[in-house]
């Protein structure tokens, strides 16, 4: 088979950097860069090779002596570095502070450990140089905490007020810049990894990890030291507050827009977790998830509720339900006996673990969007402009991709080779019809091939190839030829000049998972196309 002129993700070869996704041409063991332009503009998370949820574009820690191994690098006011920690002490009627000039401004991930706190303060202030407030209520409870902050000036300062005899001990401080235009290679249930291209989405619930603003019904929320899906060590244990039956849950209220509710949950002494919302047709029912077997145990809605459970490693599952036609604002996650929304609590200590709750106005859960006191939006990924005219043979060639779509409703989602317009393009697109794919070729604004096919499941990976050549156009899926046209004019030389995850005019962006893309500069034979797509 011919050597591809552009490849992405072949043999799990991935490379990303700020603003760029590195596609390549391989020739005589040399790699030539055919990078895509990439942008998003907000932070975003993905599942890394080690199965942990990470934030894309995280840079190395810039804090010196963040483990307080020596009494250096920090400016101290009513504080001391002793015993391998920073001890924030009696404020003497003013304030207590530790501060370090980092030389950094911008978006950052901040991680720190509170190892001791005998004060009544449950929060501490995070400031920047000159006392400029960054966050006036960082968690100060014992445990490791991670927050995402924007530093307007170039220092990090932990500040509070403490009375005589009170101390807060701080350890393991790190600040890592977040580059917001970095592509994500995601390994959720995929050892090969895939480029993740998602639409804009907003997590509409706040305090997604601490649940601090979520009211309870007969339930206790206890912060415990347990490894979370992102590798941090603070999650919430949900247990009963009474030894009674009925509901034991955390709850919040948003709106009645059709939405997907999701949460990361891990079995403790209690095996089942439920979600409960009210739909127009059924009122309040419940969906029950089995955290031991990793299955949807019961869907007690007759319609309008579509659950799913996905394993994330280390005993954690992401439980999600898409609801249509909601009739009340409330949502709740609680302990279940395996049948519905009730649980007969034998004590007030048995429970299960929860982290990373999310609600978004889509028919599926997207990558986790952390929230604190505000709702938060992750922008759409934009990935285009790989290659130049010399990388394409306009007169003949093949575009191949192994892809899975995130959804098959709502809009068109396109991958194309084009000339910056949609008059000259080789493309396939998912259409807003269940499992439908359209392959089409436009030459000088004239359609020379257009074929639509329903696949078994466009949300699972499919291998798709489309071939163009004078009087020889065809497309293949998973080893089977779907359609061919043996008449029609091909492109003039030098017309096609870029590979895009859209339709060539910044529209209908591809939303899905991309495991592999290859561009060939000659029309492959049927046997080669069968081999490529099998």
């Amino acid at each position, binding site marked *: 088979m011919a050597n591809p002129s552009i490849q992405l993700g072949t043999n799990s070869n991935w490379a990303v950097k700020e603003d760029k996704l590195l596609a390549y041409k391989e020739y005589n063991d040399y790699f030539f860069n055919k990078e895509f332009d990439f942008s998003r503009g907000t932070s975003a998370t993905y599942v890394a090779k080690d199965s942990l949820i990470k934030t894309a574009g995280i840079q190395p820690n810039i804090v010196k002596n963040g483990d307080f191994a020596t009494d250096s690098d920090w400016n101290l006011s009513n504080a001391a570095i002793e015993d391998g920690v920073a001890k924030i002490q009696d404020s003497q009627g003013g304030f207590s502070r530790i501060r370090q000039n980092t030389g950094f401004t911008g978006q950052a991930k901040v991680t720190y450990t509170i190892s001791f706190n005998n004060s009544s303060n449950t929060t501490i202030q995070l400031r920047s140089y000159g006392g400029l407030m*960054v966050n006036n209520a960082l968690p100060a409870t014992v445990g490791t905490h991670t927050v*995402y902050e924007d530093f307007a000036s170039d220092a990090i300062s932990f500040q509070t007020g403490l009375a005589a005899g009170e101390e807060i001990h701080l350890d393991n401080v790190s600040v890592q810049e977040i580059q*917001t235009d970095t592509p994500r290679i995601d390994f959720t249930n995929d050892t090969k990894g895939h480029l993740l291209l998602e639409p804009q989405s907003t997590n509409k619930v706040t305090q997604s990890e601490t649940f601090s603003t979520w009211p309870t019904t007969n339930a206790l929320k206890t912060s415990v030291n347990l490894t979370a899906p992102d590798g941090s060590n603070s999650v919430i244990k949900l247990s009963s507050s009474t030894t009674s039956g009925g509901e034991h849950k955390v709850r919040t209220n948003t709106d009645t827009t059709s939405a997907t509710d999701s949460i990361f949950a891990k079995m403790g002494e209690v095996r089942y977790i439920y979600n409960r919302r*009210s739909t127009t047709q059924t009122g309040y029912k419940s969906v029950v998830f089995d955290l031991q077997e990793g299955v949807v145990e019961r869907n007690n809605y007759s319609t309008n509720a579509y659950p799913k459970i996905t394993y994330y490693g280390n005993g954690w599952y992401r439980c999600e339900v898409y609801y249509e036609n909601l009739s009340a604002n409330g949502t709740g996650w609680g302990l279940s006996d395996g049948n519905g929304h009730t649980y007969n609590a034998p004590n007030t200590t048995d429970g299960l673990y929860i982290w990373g709750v999310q609600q978004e106005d889509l028919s599926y859960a997207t990558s986790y969007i952390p929230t604190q006191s*505000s709702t938060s939006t992750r922008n759409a990924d934009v990935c285009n402009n790989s290659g130049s005219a010399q990388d394409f043979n306009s007169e003949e060639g093949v575009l191949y991709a192994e892809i899975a779509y995130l959804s098959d409703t709502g809009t068109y989602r396109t991958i194309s080779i084009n000339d910056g317009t949609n008059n000259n393009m080789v493309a396939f697109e998912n259409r807003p019809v269940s499992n439908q794919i359209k392959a089409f070729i436009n030459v000088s604004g004239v359609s020379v091939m257009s074929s639509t096919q329903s696949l078994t499941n466009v949300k699972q990976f499919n291998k798709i190839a489309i071939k163009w050549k004078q009087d020889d156009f065809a497309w293949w899926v998973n080893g089977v030829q779907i359609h061919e046209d043996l008449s029609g004019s091909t492109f003039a030389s030098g017309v096609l000049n870029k590979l895009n995850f859209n339709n060539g005019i910044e529209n209908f962006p591809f939303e899905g998972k991309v495991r592999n893309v290859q561009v060939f500069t000659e029309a492959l034979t049927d046997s080669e196309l069968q081999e490529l797509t099998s």
Partner: protein
Amino acid sequence: MKYIFKKYEFDNQSQGQSAIDALPSVEDEDGNKQPSHHHSVVDLGYLWTTEPIYNEDGEVETEGVKSNKYSIDVLWKASQITEFDEDGNGSIVYPDGWESKEITVEGNGVHTFAGLNFNE
């Protein structure tokens, strides 16, 4: 500066929707308008000035009060709203109908963009 975070209050939903609809878009083959810009627009709607009080089933026990202003947050992609003069100097020019509706809030208000803080 690649992105600019702004908050807006419009007189009503119709006015806000008109401003959104005026941003660049194309029609798909079914006649539906699809954005062709890379700004991120988040339609927050009429925000609560007094939150309702809910019972444990999420049913409203005491009605809340909503603002009479319609809120929208936008993360503008600077390159798509930059205009250059004949000397090649670029300046940000917001689309018509937005600048007069811009507001400021303390902190992030009810909404932010992931990894970003408002006012910074």
